[in-house]
């Protein structure tokens, strides 16, 4: 796996990019942290956030011209956040005097600052903190410059005096009543390692670098309104701070320009759209300043802009509360572990790989692709937990075994319909899960196709390989694809007729040379087999299949069939391209049942109407969550939609049996053939399986066949334990790396099953 590429993709995620208020603040105050504390009523903590970024916070916090406000995303939904009022409230309710800090040794060099206004004070303060011996020259008799013009109700004189005492407390040498002219400046440049000029007015034009504030290559740096050409208070403070960084670098003889792209104002890559937003006007203040309660309410209006679009739409990302950015970093770490626990495994196997995140993402980042690559890499390195996908892969193996797999051309008995049956223009490919859930519909659909499509319609039963793809098993996938391709070529390159969205996506990805059409398009074009047109049957909400989110033809056909069947459609917020996964995708149903259940209930919560789906697993999963759900084939072939809407998913064992029986029925009824082997694998055991044991079998992925083999073996070999008290037997048998245990009683010719369980660990019996 290309981890550098992965980290590059992770860097593109805008989840933790700053909001536009912070990027528009020249000193980058963390506005979200600030309002978050305010909203909690933690005024002290809110003040601490201010103080961290804003020099002389009590002064600047009172008079800041807040360029952040014009960038506020709330502006269009009632009005921008009253940030300056909130800052004032933080000063009133949250100010605490600065803690005494040990000042660093002043041994890095000497710096002069000319001008005791906002920018000069900031530069002097910052240079002092960086370890320089600073001398501050001010032409008047006091520090502060134009700060004093702002003194009044909002900013009391006493506060200005108190705040400016910081300079003296820090031990910064101040020369008041000292006017520095051009000649004086030249002398300072000779005397000091670097000089800052922040006088507001200067009688010669200086060429100042806009990012470093340096004048040419000289040790002179210029900030404040002299450099900014405006009277913004916060820009002045910012320029003093940035010039101090340049001076430090200049004196240390390191690059002045490197890695400074995000200083001052910058365009944030963050994009933020609030859906379903409620407009709310700014909280009005009763008195001159916000009360605590008013400030808390105003802070509550802030969106706290952060891109969570993919997270909010996805039960997996929200369940693990993780952004794609940190997700990819965790994958990176997990991929680099040599010895130790791969904690991210469960998460990686809980993504349905549905691709909605990419649709939602402003940057088009797809976790589907990332997860696919990661799972393939885990398999390649032998780090994929065996139990995660084992059952699904064995199910695929079953579908591609002779117990289900078959290919047949259109039978001769259908010749009265179409003469030219030697040709096979179409091959009906219903997939594996539709026959497992609805074998009778597959039979009906095939008969429909044969009567409606000219040119011969064959049938191909098997699994497309989606489980192998999801499990990262490229070895199995390639083998399967080659097999399908071989059949297709052998039969004269027919067009496949698909009834499963999962198969469609596998064919698009791995078999682009094979033309396919969905059976839904054929139904929509050729009309429904029965005259179903009874209007006003009700309203259905379509849950589109995530594996065909980009297939508009399928989306349209489904809606047409619904209309032909007399239903009207309600479109969900997440539909078509933006559809969600039911919880089966990516084999999550097998790897993490809880995660799968979260997908199911999230989707069910989204709609009040009955659902209409066109993927067998979607129907089975929604019904398992108690939602009335109709499969599109229920509309076409079903009788009594009332009972069908809540018809439960067949058990895992029945899903096998249904596939076997479909093959037998097709062979017998359409091709007049007798299956040449015991496809059903009947053992002749007369089992009584109570409901609680059936549930255990589902939860523990144990098939009836496996149960029968254990019992059969124990009865024949005598290898079993016996409990004389309750007359139970306990038998075990290891089958394909799993040991199955069955506890049962023998009652005349019947066998009552009391429990069943399994383990993968091998116990050596010696």
């Amino acid at each position, binding site marked *: 796996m290309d981890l550098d590429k992965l980290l590059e993709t992770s860097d593109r995620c805008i989840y933790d990019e700053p909001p536009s208020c912070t990027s528009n603040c020249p000193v980058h105050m963390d506005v979200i942290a600030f309002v978050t504390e305010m909203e909690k009523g933690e005024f002290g903590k809110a003040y601490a956030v201010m103080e961290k970024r804003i020099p002389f916070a009590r002064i600047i916090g009172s008079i800041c011209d807040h360029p952040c406000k014009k960038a506020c995303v709330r502006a269009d939904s009632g009005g921008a956040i009253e940030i300056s009022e909130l800052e004032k409230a933080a000063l009133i309710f949250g100010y605490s005097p600065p803690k005494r800090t040990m000042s660093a040794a002043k041994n890095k060099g000497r710096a002069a600052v000319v001008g005791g206004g906002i920018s000069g004070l900031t530069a002097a303060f910052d240079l002092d903190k960086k370890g320089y011996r600073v001398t501050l020259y001010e032409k008047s008799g006091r520090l502060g410059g134009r700060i004093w013009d702002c003194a009044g109700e909002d900013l009391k004189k006493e506060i200005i005096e108190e705040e400016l005492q910081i300079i003296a407390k820090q031990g910064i040498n101040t020369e008041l009543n000292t006017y520095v002219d051009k000649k004086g400046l030249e002398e300072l440049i000779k005397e000091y390692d670097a000089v800052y000029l922040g006088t507001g007015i200067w009688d010669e034009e200086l060429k100042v670098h806009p990012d470093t504030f340096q004048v040419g290559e000289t040790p002179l740096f210029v900030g404040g309104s002299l450099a900014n050409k405006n009277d913004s208070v916060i820009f002045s403070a910012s320029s003093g701070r940035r010039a101090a960084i340049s001076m430090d670098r200049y004196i240390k003889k390191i690059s002045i320009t490197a890695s400074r792209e995000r200083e001052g104002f910058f365009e944030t890559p963050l994009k933020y759209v609030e859906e379903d937003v409620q407009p709310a006007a700014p909280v009005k203040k009763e008195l001159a300043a916000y009360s605590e309660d008013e400030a808390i309410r105003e802070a509550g209006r802030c969106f706290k802009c952060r891109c969570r679009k993919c997270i909010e739409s996805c039960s997996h990302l929200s369940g693990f509360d993780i952004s794609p950015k940190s997700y990819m970093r965790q994958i990176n770490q997990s991929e680099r572990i040599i010895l130790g626990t*791969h904690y991210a495994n469960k998460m990686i196997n809980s993504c349905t790989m549905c691709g909605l995140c990419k649709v939602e993402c402003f940057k088009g980042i797809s976790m589907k692709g990332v997860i696919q690559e990661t799972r393939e890499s885990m398999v390649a390195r032998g780090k994929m*937990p*065996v139990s995660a996908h084992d059952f699904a892969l064995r199910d695929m193996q079953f579908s591609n075994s002779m117990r289900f797999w078959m290919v047949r051309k259109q039978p001769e008995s259908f010749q009265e319909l179409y003469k030219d049956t030697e040709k096979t223009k179409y091959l009906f490919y219903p997939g594996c899960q539709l026959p497992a859930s609805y074998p009778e519909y597959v039979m009906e659909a095939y008969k429909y196709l044969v009567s409606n499509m000219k040119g011969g319609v064959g049938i191909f039963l098997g699994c497309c390989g989606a489980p192998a793809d999801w499990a990262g098993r490229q070895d199995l996938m390639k083998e399967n694809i080659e097999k399908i391709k071989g059949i297709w070529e052998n039969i004269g390159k027919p067009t496949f007729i698909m009834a499963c969205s999962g198969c469609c996506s596998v064919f698009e990805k791995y078999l682009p040379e094979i033309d396919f059409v969905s059976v839904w398009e054929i139904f929509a074009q050729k009309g429904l087999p029965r005259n179903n047109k009874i209007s006003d049957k009700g309203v259905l909400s379509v849950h589109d299949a995530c594996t065909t989110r980009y297939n508009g033809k399928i989306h349209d056909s489904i809606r047409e069939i619904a209309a032909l069947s007399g239903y009207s459609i309600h479109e969900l917020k997440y539909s078509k391209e933006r559809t969600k996964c039911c919880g089966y995708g990516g084999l999550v149903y097998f790897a993490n049942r809880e995660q799968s259940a979260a997908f199911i209930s999230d989707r069910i919560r989204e709609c009040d109407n009955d659902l209409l789906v066109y993927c067998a697993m979607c129907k089975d999963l929604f019904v398992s969550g108690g939602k009335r759900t109709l499969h599109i084939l229920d509309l076409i072939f079903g009788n009594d939609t009332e009972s069908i809407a809540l018809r439960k998913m067949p058990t895992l064992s029945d899903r096998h049996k249904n596939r076997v029986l479909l093959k037998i029925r097709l062979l017998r009824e359409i091709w007049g053939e007798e299956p040449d082997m015991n496809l059903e694998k009947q053992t002749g055991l007369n089992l009584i399986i109570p409901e609680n044991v059936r549930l255990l079998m589902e939860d523990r992925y144990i098939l009836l066949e496996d149960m029968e083999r254990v019992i059969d073996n124990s009865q024949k070999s005598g*290898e079993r334990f*016996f409990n004389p008290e309750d007359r139970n037997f306990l038998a075990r048998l290891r089958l394909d790396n799993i040991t199955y245990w069955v506890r049962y009683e023998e009652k005349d010719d019947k066998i009552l099953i009391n429990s069943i369980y399994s*383990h*993968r660990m091998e116990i050596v*019996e010696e």
Partner: protein
Amino acid sequence: MDAENKQYMPWICDKCKKELILRKVKARYLEGNFEVELMKCPVCSMVFIEEDLAMGKMLEVEKGLEDK
């Protein structure tokens, strides 16, 4: 599972009709090899694993090893 905490054990080996005894038994999964004390038949060595053990501690150890 030491001798003092030995639980009441009604199960016998049905094939050998013997009471089970507690013995050290080898277990392995993926890269892990351990020795654990389990009940087994003294004659045919068939090892008894109850449901709580299989679905509890054993499952936990299996998952742990799978994530190594």
